[in-house]
């Protein structure tokens, strides 16, 4: 199957189970969204898919275009075409945006070195498209970046690396209206029959700009409900209680 295929995934961190039998199929060429209350496991799903070492997978499988990911290191998964836009991108002081992007481009290139001229041309074009100021490429990666700049940086990476499957972990959080428009612009540019996209979010806003083909609700470590736009509207209006009921889950535990 072309795309991301997750079957009965169980994952834990520090011996606490977070994902408890999550199954999900996102074919390439489609955009799926995941919503869910805090603590449901949304970011864990993103981290586990990318291979964060802090998480342990006890059961289940994840495959990209039919290839098992669980045996692969994060960099190997990336070179297969997987991309994760982080919710909280980390800073790497002293490493310029340009140097970082070139190193990543080289790592993705079959010869180990991406041709410089094309790289520079692409960088200029994409930075312009994302309305980034000239000189941005010389700043230390995520060093002193505002929230909006960090998220734009994630999208710039997507445009430069052209993944075949991208997971966006709450990319919209902390963004103002304008920044959100630019992010959506970038994502929609990549959208097409080749790209599979999984958008993790809390809010309707981004899903109005990047319209998903399908929407899933993640709750207590599992996908409990799937549907179309109407699901999103109902959650916005009523919250998640109805989802709990329909899924036959116990009422939400009292806040800690």
């Amino acid at each position, binding site marked *: 199957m072309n795309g991301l295929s997750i079957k009965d995934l169980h994952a834990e961190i520090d011996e606490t189970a977070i994902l408890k039998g999550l199954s999900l199929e996102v074919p390439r060429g489609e955009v799926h969204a995941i919503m869910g209350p805090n603590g449901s496991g949304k970011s864990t799903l993103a981290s586990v898919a990318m*291979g964060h070492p802090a998480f342990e997978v006890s059961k289940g499988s994840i495959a990209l275009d039919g290839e098992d990911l669980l045996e692969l290191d*994060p*960099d190997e998964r*990336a*070179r297969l075409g997987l991309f994760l836009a982080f919710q909280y991108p*980390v800073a790497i002081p*002293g490493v310029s945006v340009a140097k970082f992007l070139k190193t990543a481009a080289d790592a993705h290139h079959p010869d180990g070195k991406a041709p410089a001229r094309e790289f520079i041309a692409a960088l200029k074009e994409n930075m312009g498209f994302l309305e980034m100021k000239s000189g941005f490429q010389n700043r230390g990666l995520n060093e002193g970046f505002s929230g909006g700049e960090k998220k734009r940086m994630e999208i710039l990476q997507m445009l430069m690396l052209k993944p075949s499957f991208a997971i966006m972990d709450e990319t919209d959080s902390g963004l103002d209206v304008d920044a959100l428009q630019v992010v959506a612009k970038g994502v929609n540019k990549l959208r097409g029959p080749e790209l599979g996209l999984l958008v993790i979010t809390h809010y309707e806003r981004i899903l109005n700009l990047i319209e998903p083909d399908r929407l899933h609700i993640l709750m207590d470590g599992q996908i409990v409900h799937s549907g179309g736009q109407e699901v999103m509207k109902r959650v916005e209006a009523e919250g998640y209680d109805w989802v709990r009921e329909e899924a036959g889950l116990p009422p939400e535990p009292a806040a800690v």
Partner: protein
Amino acid sequence: MPILETDSKLVQDYEHGFVTDIVTDEVPKGLNEDIIRMISAKKEEPEWMLKLRLEAYAHWQTMTSPTWAFIDHPEIDYNDIRYYSAPGSMLDDDGEVDPELAKTFERLGIPLNERDALAGVAIDAVFDSVSVGTTHTELLEEHGIIFCSFSEAIKNHPELIKQYMGSVVPMKDNYFAALNAAVFTDGSFCFVPKGVRCPLDLSTYFRINSADTGQFERTLIVCEDDAYVSYIEGCTAPQRDTNQLHAAVVEIYAHKGAEVKYSTVQNWYAGNDEGKGGIYNFVTKRGLCKGAKSKISWTQVEVGSAITWKYPSVIMEGDGSIGEFYSVAFTNKKMQADTGTKMIHIGKNTSSTIISKGISADYSDNTYRGLVKVLPGADGAKNHSICDSMLVGPNCSANTFPYIESENSNAVIAHEATTSAISEDQLFYLQSRGISEEDAASLIVKGFCKEVFKELPMEFSVEAVKLLELKLEGSIG
């Protein structure tokens, strides 16, 4: 995650660990007046130099080895060291450098004949106790620049040696300075006359070869008014089971408006995984900004030696003079480093900059020790210090001992320090972009050292970056 595991499994081969098979001219092991006379005689030194050596030796005998450093080593038996070893024949019948020697230096990437010479760099090559050759001397002579071995300078320019030797590091300064003054063998002498900007980078390459030999090199650089020179020092040694002592003294004297840039890339053999063998690098390096508006910059990349103990310093006597210290000190396996700088502000409106980056890995100890001292008359003194430590793995240590002594109330002194580790999140972020774990760690460390690397002369900065990457490989994965 391998990088955070306790054991570093990869043994990084020290590629300079080979030994050159060559006939040597040596003195017996041990330290006494006779040995000193022997050394002086072998070097054909004038009487006044022998007197100086004996005076230093007599003084050294009254001193004791300092113990305040954050360093642990077995007591050194000074009688178990050979104080002189020279290649038996340096020149072959055609007057060319002995092929074995030339091969050695070629293997280290240091071409001795000018055909293959590194463009823009004049080289003095020192093998154990002697200088085996200096390139470009004629070109430099045209500019009035003297660049030769210290031994030659004693013979050919005695008045300069008498004037400047010991003027920045007197023999009584410390234990190792006294020892060095007694038994120093060779090193470089450089003199740049008024107003001359040296057209080549000058470089000395030190190679220790003989076993049981200590290397006590002595380097002296003098820049007259408005002169400029950029000097580079490189060092390697063979892999041996026992420790060898390298106790050098480097003096820099800058007259009015002069500027000296001194860069070091030190890669002495550092011992094996268990900490056996390796060079003890105990060095006194000091620069004197004697004239107004003079400037001395020390840039060092230290990635070798079992133990590194050095504080390249600048004494800013001249008004408006400037001192700078840029350092990357890398320790791994069981290496120890206690290094830093002393910036002494004496004249008016002097300023100093310190940027120190320490990286420790495996089971090593890395200590920064610095002194910023402002004397009462040093009005308008300014200092900015940045001391950052990076820890790779859970078993190494990093310490910082910054001393600030100011006796002038309008001095402005700023000190910043950070300690960090290569975080799992940083590695994961870079790996999620397809970059391998090793390349990711290397990228992070290079970013960490960026401010220092950009101070190195071009040719050396490329080498230094590559060297650091090589050393890191053994500590990651």
